[in-house]
């Protein structure tokens, strides 16, 4: 009995010291992995930028399986980290369970909405960014056929695909959009072989621009497109440099800014929902040295004009999540 007391006291002491240490912010990467050249890597960039500017340090963890979600977030909260940035919609349930147990810790969820008093939820207007790259795809296409390859078949990815198709049809109403999803399980994010095969299949159907929103699978798509002599569009991070001159553009999702802002606010992160849309530069298309020869000034002017209209609300892009349907393409 007395041993138990000692143990309890010791654990209490450890917990106290942990709580008193300067609260470092923390970042928990999701299953795609820290260096996925895409979503998770964008978050990493944001955290690195913060660390470089402030000289501060942060904690990080990388999830390896579905089963670790709650355990990892809980463990990170127990170390006293504050705020804790968690990536991916898959963690909505996780935070609904864990956040109430740590009322003094602030959590930030990217890509999902959690209604808890200590959680900031950040969502991106992926459909708006996808609309812009869709317009670029249609403008660059000579065959009037463009492709979309999604990773795991989930509403979020359909939101990308739907916005993309709407953008294509806005420029060329008679254009064909071929849509493929890689799979229904988490493995669909890491299957470059299947991604390449899907891209080849779309090329054989006449597609000459393919947008990949598929994490690691997308790297296979970009490779197959470059091999097949057609253009591709990257996602989340700027992927133009992967195959210079062969990637038309990338749909940027400024996850880095979201992480940076959260780290900067520290434990004073305001809870609530933040919508990172085109108007707040939360999404954008990439234009740099690697693709400047692919995008003519006319194309750029057309797309920038549309971007301004979307930002001002004049054009309203259909959001797949609003009614779970897409009038522009069938998945």
């Amino acid at each position, binding site marked *: 009995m007395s041993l138990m007391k000692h143990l309890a006291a010791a654990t209490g002491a450890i917990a106290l010291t942990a709580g008193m240490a300067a609260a470092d912010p923390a970042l928990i990467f999701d299953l795609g*992995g820290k*260096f996925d050249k895409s979503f998770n890597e964008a978050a990493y960039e944001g955290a690195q930028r913060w660390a470089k500017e402030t000289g501060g340090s942060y904690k990080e963890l990388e999830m390896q399986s579905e089963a670790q979600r709650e355990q990892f977030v809980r463990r990170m909260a127990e170390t006293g980290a504050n705020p804790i940035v968690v990536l991916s919609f898959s963690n909505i349930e996780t935070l609904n369970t864990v956040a109430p147990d740590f009322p003094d810790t602030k959590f930030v969820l990217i890509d999902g909405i959690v209604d808890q008093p200590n959680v900031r939820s950040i969502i991106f207007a992926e459909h708006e960014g996808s609309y812009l790259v869709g317009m670029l795809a249609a403008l660059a296409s000579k065959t009037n056929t463009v492709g979309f390859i999604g990773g795991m078949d989930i509403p979020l990815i359909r939101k990308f695909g739907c916005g993309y198709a709407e953008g294509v049809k806005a420029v060329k109403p008679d254009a064909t959009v071929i849509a493929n999803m890689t799979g229904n399980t988490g493995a669909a994010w*890491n299957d470059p072989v299947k991604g*390449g095969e899907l891209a080849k299949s779309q090329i*054989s159907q006449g597609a000459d621009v393919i947008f990949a929103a598929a994490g690691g699978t997308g790297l296979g798509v970009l*490779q197959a497109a470059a091999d097949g002599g057609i253009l591709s569009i990257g996602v989340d991070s700027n992927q133009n440099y992967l195959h210079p001159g062969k990637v038309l553009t990338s749909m940027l999702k400024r996850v880095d800014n979201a992480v940076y802002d959260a780290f900067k606010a520290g434990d004073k992160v305001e809870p609530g929902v933040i919508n990172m849309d085109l108007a707040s530069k939360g999404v954008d298309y990439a234009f740099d040295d690697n693709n400047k020869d692919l995008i003519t000034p006319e194309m750029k002017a057309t797309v920038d004009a549309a971007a301004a209209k979307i930002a001002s609300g004049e054009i309203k892009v259909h959001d797949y999540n609003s009614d779970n349907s897409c009038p522009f393409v069938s998945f």
Partner: protein
Amino acid sequence: MIDFATLIEILDSTVRLGTPLLFACLAGLFSERAGIFDIGLEGKMLAAAFLAGAVAAVTGSAWLGTLAGIGGSLIFAAIHGFASITFRGNQLISGVALNFLASGMTILLGQYWFGLGGRTPALIAGGRFEAITLPFADALAPIPVIGRLYSDLLSGHSALVYIGFACVPASAFLLYRTRFGLRLRAVGENPAAVDTAGISVTGIRYAAVAICGVLCGLAGAYLALGLAAGFGKEMTAGRGFIALAALIFAKWRPWYALGATMLFGFLEAVGNRFPKIEIGFISVPSQFMQALPYILTVVILAGFVGKATPPRAGGEPYVKER
């Protein structure tokens, strides 16, 4: 319903998707015919894909990469051999352990060597297997039907595809027409009888496991150097297990293995080409098309192939009576 060009396209994709399965299936065949169950095909392929990608990226040579992949796969095969032949451990557990080991080690080493999150650097020409154009492919292309079949379907694959197809008759010959093959099959059925004849059961089983390692190495190398341009984490995506299903479907026979793996490749290719199929008023959803290979496995195993009898001594370590 579909035109000839589409059919060729699908068959072409079938060959590409079926080849890694074929290698892995033949690998499992040798191992299991000698009485060593191998659930670690996936792990061996993954390790091979990683080493192939890493070495090809550093040396710029696809063939050196392939050799490295085979080497890595052989190390895994040796561990499996030690555990299940020499130490008479449980073969399934050893296989599962190797799968976990491969999954973790590839990412760890990849991150340590290249710092790209477990990925190997993207390969450029030379590091990858280029498509081989068979002789007269361009000249014959204009001939209807046969020309397309030859120039699009048979020609234009990477060297490993042709090696894979050559492995089928080679395996059949080795298993059914040579003394080694007879002994290998006997070791899987009745090791005691082989031992009585004065032949080393251990030796034959190690040889079988080594052949399995080489073939898994080729499967992994084809994934990383033929189909993709480098290694990505978990890039085998369950193909080792599909190959195991194909092995049972093929009743542990080389020619059947060719048919089974190509059927799985074909179903995946059809699913890729037609994510949705409209038949009259009914629309078959894409989820169904993606699940088709798995549904087929269950249906076929439930009765269509008849009884699939595994080698009788499979899964049992051989203990000499004292």
